[in-house]
């Protein structure tokens, strides 16, 4: 940029930067939608409904956080929906075997992390493309779940404390345990991306794996860790979902990978790697959750849900594309100005 940029110029460029920020378009979309909804439907802008939205978004938010980490390293995880279902079944099974609740919860999360680790190994050691390895895991984990449960939902594992942990009982008003857990997860992922060497390396691996490798970044380890994080988040989501629905259907989590990827992409992560933030994942999950809620409240049939999710994803990528064209143009303009 030219050195002579004035104060006015700086503030203009701050606006420009905000407009070019990938998640700002999504944020604007949410605001417009929220305002329109609160004008049209009095039931929308209430504390109770806000609580509903927050409680609904927890699942997609947790998955989107894991997905964001994977996307930052330049990968993709299609298996989160299946992993979430299988982990929930592992948790339920462990609880049903009669051990204290906490073992079941830990087992669910650990199962998710383990499956994520397998994903990472398939990608780094066997050299499979990311989406093929995780697509295979999607099929295998779902198949295992069906085979294991014989197609029959698991239930009867709901210990009294599980109701509190899953947010079915709400000791502190609409702030439920899942919301608190999601908050901790957002802060943890944000901190990890910002302040740990893993985070810095993850962006490096995603933006230029070759350069990262040459600068002796442990590319393989970073990639595996990213998939472990994503699997762990899927396990955590499965654990919470098992509590929320009080049953583990063999179909649990089907299609959640689309919501998770959509939320992460809407939040500014890119398939090309090197981009994405924990805050973006929150915005993305919020967009999906608020649109779902708006569909509900405005009385549109909930069968439209999936159509709308797909369209929101499409709108988000089109917006991202436009903003990247704008970004290109302004960079080129600035270089040209700097040269004259």
């Amino acid at each position: 940029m030219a050195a002579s940029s004035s104060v006015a110029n700086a503030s203009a460029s701050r606006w420009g930067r905000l407009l070019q920020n990938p998640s700002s378009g999504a944020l604007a979309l949410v605001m417009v939608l929220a305002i329109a909804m609160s004008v049209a439907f009095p039931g929308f802008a209430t504390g109770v409904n806000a609580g509903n939205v927050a409680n609904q978004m927890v699942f997609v938010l947790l998955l989107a956080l894991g997905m964001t980490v994977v996307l930052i390293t330049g990968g993709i995880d299609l298996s989160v929906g299946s992993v979430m279902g299988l982990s929930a079944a592992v948790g339920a099974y462990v609880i049903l075997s009669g051990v204290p609740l906490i073992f079941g919860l830990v087992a669910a999360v650990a199962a998710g992390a383990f499956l994520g680790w397998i994903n990472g190994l398939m990608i780094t050691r066997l050299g499979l493309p990311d989406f093929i390895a995780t697509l295979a895991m999607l099929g295998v984990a779902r198949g295992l779940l069906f085979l294991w449960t014989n197609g029959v939902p698991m239930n009867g594992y709901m210990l009294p404390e599980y109701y509190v942990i899953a947010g079915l009982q709400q000791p502190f008003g609409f702030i439920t345990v899942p919301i608190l857990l999601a908050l901790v997860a957002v802060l943890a992922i944000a901190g990890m991306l910002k302040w740990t060497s893993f985070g810095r390396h993850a962006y490096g691996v995603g933006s230029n794996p070759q350069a990262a490798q040459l600068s002796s970044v442990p590319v393989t380890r970073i990639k595996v860790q990213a998939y472990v994080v994503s699997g762990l988040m899927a396990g955590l989501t499965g654990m919470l979902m098992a509590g929320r629905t009080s049953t583990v259907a063999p179909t649990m989590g089907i299609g959640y990978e689309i919501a998770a990827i959509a939320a992460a992409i809407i939040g500014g992560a890119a398939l090309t790697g090197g981009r994405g933030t924990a805050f973006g994942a929150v915005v993305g999950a919020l967009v999906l959750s608020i649109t779902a809620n708006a569909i509900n409240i405005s009385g549109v049939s909930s069968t439209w849900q999936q159509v709308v999710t797909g369209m929101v994803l499409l709108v988000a990528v089109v917006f991202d594309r436009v903003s990247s064209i704008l970004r290109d143009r302004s960079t080129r303009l600035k270089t040209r100005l700097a040269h004259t």
Partner: protein
Amino acid sequence: MNVRERLGRVASIDGLAIALALAAAVIYFSFASPFFMTGENIRNLLIQSLFIILLAAGMTFTLVTGGFDLSVGSVTGLSAAMTLMSLMNGAPLAAGILAGVATGVVAGAINGFFIAVLKINGFIVTLASLSIGAGMLQVITSQVQLTGVDSQAFAALTKGSFLGVPTGLWITLVIVGVLEWVLLATPFGRGLFALGTNREAAFLAGTNVRRLTFSVYLISGTVAGAAGVLLASHLNSVQPGLGQGYELSAIAAAVLGGIALSGGRGSVWRSVVGALFLATLSQGLQLIGVDPMWFNIVTGASIVIAVAFDRGIQRLVAVQLASAAAKGAPARHTAPDPSDGSVSVAEDAGQKLPALPVPGPTAQGAGEAESGSSLSVARNM
């Protein structure tokens, strides 16, 4: 030529591995179950595999250009619904078929528009259209009970018989034959290979990248539409969730047939053999008493094995090429001797950093679209 090279040369014959695997599966199951090699069973097997065969054939086109179409399963389901809905509303047979195929054409054109014209990552676009298609199927089926029509002619579309072979199989054969011809024997097909091998070079050589990219998604969508029509004729009813997961099987079939995910390699018949292999496996496992729920696991595992195997072969071929180059140019003594198992520097870096050389279709396209500093060539593609 040592044993290793010879082995590598045999193993790298295109399509040999999957054809052998299919033969082995057929032989094994005909011994393991007396019911496998019956006319009835083979007929069922073929009819049930028609849909995956068609989708895999369409998928070959997107894969050859280094792209990817995740939406084929839900497009198939939606097309089936459109066909059945038109027929149930009293439309003539031709109009019903047209409705189904047109659904596929529209879906493919929409995918193609976003991917080729707006240059948005194909993976995300087709993921979104997967969601939209499946959602629309849900909306339709929640409002109309698609329980089928009483039409002999419509049923005969798959179940009829011509020269002892089911009509559905004839239709599939014709479609597959035309697709194979287009891919292997026309300038259009050669353009697709050029595009998949090296996008930038193809553009510089005057290939109309935008038109070709649009066409492959159009083809993939149209074929999915045709598959939907046949599926509607086969089932004569449409449930929500129809076609869900077909994309997984189609990709598995193509990958099993050795279609490279990085683009530039493939042929329709190999995907078809891959689809037949999966169908044989599924039917055979059921006949010998294995829980059909194993099928998902087998499909997933076979994708992993096929891709890992393919990479192994590619590595062997690379070693061979390197050794051939070394023999052809004996002056280059400074190059590391490839015959002792080590590979060239670039190859080595590639193998140790798998995320790099096989970015797959996920990373392509968007990479050009998003990096502002890339060549102006890339921006125009």
